[in-house]
Every structure is written in structure tokens, then in C-alpha cells.
């Protein structure tokens, strides 16, 4: 088993947390995993990106040119990264902030999920990252939404523990929108 995913969006959308959660879940599942965040000067412009690689083998590079899945959480990410996933790859787009009309690829699987809107409906725009992970779990088949939810405790800080149920709900909402469990 090998799977790699690239998540990109604005700073503040919880991109890194989403990646870390995914990595933690993969680790708890017994997989090898690497999580690579964007860092430093790149952050100034208000963008955030990360890559997660999961495998039952040793993992080579934690940075991947052509990730099997790209999650584009905003318009610039859609424009910039839709090209990187290989033919047959998966592109999950936050259709609340990115225009699906701008998808140029014909050779990949594209899913629009109005992550921000769904999150706002759940009561907090910041949950869009969890919605994204739910959709990812459903669409990639690489890891289950339960496994992701199960790792929340390890990743969410002590004082935010009470928010775990809400996060779980957001993950499920993503699963639901992407085609149901």
C-alpha cells in the first residue's frame, strides 16, 4: 500500500493540522508515514501547504511531485496544483472558494465539495479542513474516516478536547457529501 496526498490552501484554513491528523491516523494504523509542511518565507504570503505519504513499505521522499491526490482548499491552489496529480489521480476542490470551471484536466477524477459552506453550516468556518479529510477518506480509499477521527485526540490540544465531537461531525459531513459511507 502506498498513497500520497498534497493539501494546499490559505493560512488559517487548518491545512497543516489536517495533514498532521492524517499522518497520525496512518501511524496509528501501523503504516509508515511522512508529513512534510511548507515552512518559512513561503508562509508570509498567507499560503499553507503540506504533503502526507503513507505506505506499508519504507518511504522515500516525503515530498512528491505528482501526488495521487491533491486537495485544493482555495482558488490559487486549484489553479496552481491541478497539474501536479498524474493521469487517473484525484483532485478534491473546495468549491466554496474555488471555481470548478477552472478545472482544465480531463484525465483525472475531480470532486467539488463546498467545504467552507458545509463547515459554516456546522457552525464554524474553520472546520473546512475536517470536511476535506472526510471527503478524502471517502474518495481515496486509502484510510477510513473512522481511523482519521480516531486520531483526533492525539492531534488536538488539551484545551480543545471538547471540540472533538464537532470535528468528527465535520469529517462525517465530508464523507457524506462525497458520496456517503
Amino acid at each position, binding site marked *: 500500500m502506498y498513497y500520497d496526498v498534497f493539501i494546499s490552501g490559505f493560512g488559517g484554513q487548518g491545512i497543516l493540522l489536517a495533514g498532521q491528523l492524517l499522518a497520525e491516523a496512518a501511524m496509528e494504523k501501523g503504516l509508515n508515514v511522512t508529513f512534510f509542511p511548507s515552512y518559512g518565507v513561503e508562509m508570509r504570503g*498567507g499560503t499553507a501547504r503540506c504533503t502526507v505519504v503513507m505506505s506499508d513499505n519504507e518511504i522515500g521522499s516525503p515530498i512528491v511531485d505528482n501526488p495521487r491526490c491533491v486537495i485544493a482548499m482555495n482558488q490559487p491552489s486549484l489553479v496552481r496544483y491541478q497539474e501536479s496529480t498524474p493521469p487517473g489521480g484525484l483532485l478534491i476542490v473546495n468549491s466554496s472558494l474555488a471555481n470548478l470551471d477552472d478545472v482544465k484536466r480531463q484525465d483525472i477524477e475531480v470532486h467539488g465539495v463546498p467545504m467552507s459552506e458545509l463547515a459554516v453550516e456546522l457552525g464554524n468556518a474553520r472546520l473546512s479542513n475536517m470536511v476535506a479529510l472526510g471527503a478524502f477518506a471517502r474518495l481515496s480509499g486509502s484510510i477510513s474516516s473512522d481511523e482519521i477521527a480516531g486520531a483526533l485526540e492525539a492531534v488536538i490540544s488539551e484545551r480543545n478536547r471538547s471540540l472533538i465531537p464537532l470535528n468528527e461531525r465535520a469529517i462525517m459531513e465530508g464523507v457524506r457529501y462525497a458520496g456517503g459511507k
Partner: protein
Amino acid sequence: MPTIKIESEKCKGCSLCIDVCPYELIRQERTINHQGYQYVVLADPEEQCTGCTLCALMCPDICIEVFK
């Protein structure tokens, strides 16, 4: 009549101009620009702007021009 022009694509929505306008003429939009920021606009262009330049002085991104 004095007025200001805000380049919304440059604006980062820091709101420093909002706070400083004596007539509270500037407000933040809910929509975002291409940079991903909720930019600001002159709320009431017809009315009270005195062209005092306070908003422009504060703006770190030099998106405000003032006419008088």
C-alpha cells in the same frame, strides 16, 4: 467632492484604515480578493469623506489614494 480610491486587489483587510477614519466611512467586505483577503471599500462614497488622508497614511499596502 473629496473621496478615496481603494485598490481592492492590493488590500489585505488589515482594517487599520477602518479604525482611523473619523467618519467610519470604510468597511470590510465579506468576499475575498485574489490574495485571499477580505478587502475594504469606501462605504459611502457620496457623503462625508473630507480627504483628510488619515486612512491612506495608515495603510501599509498603499492601496488608498485620496482626492480632494
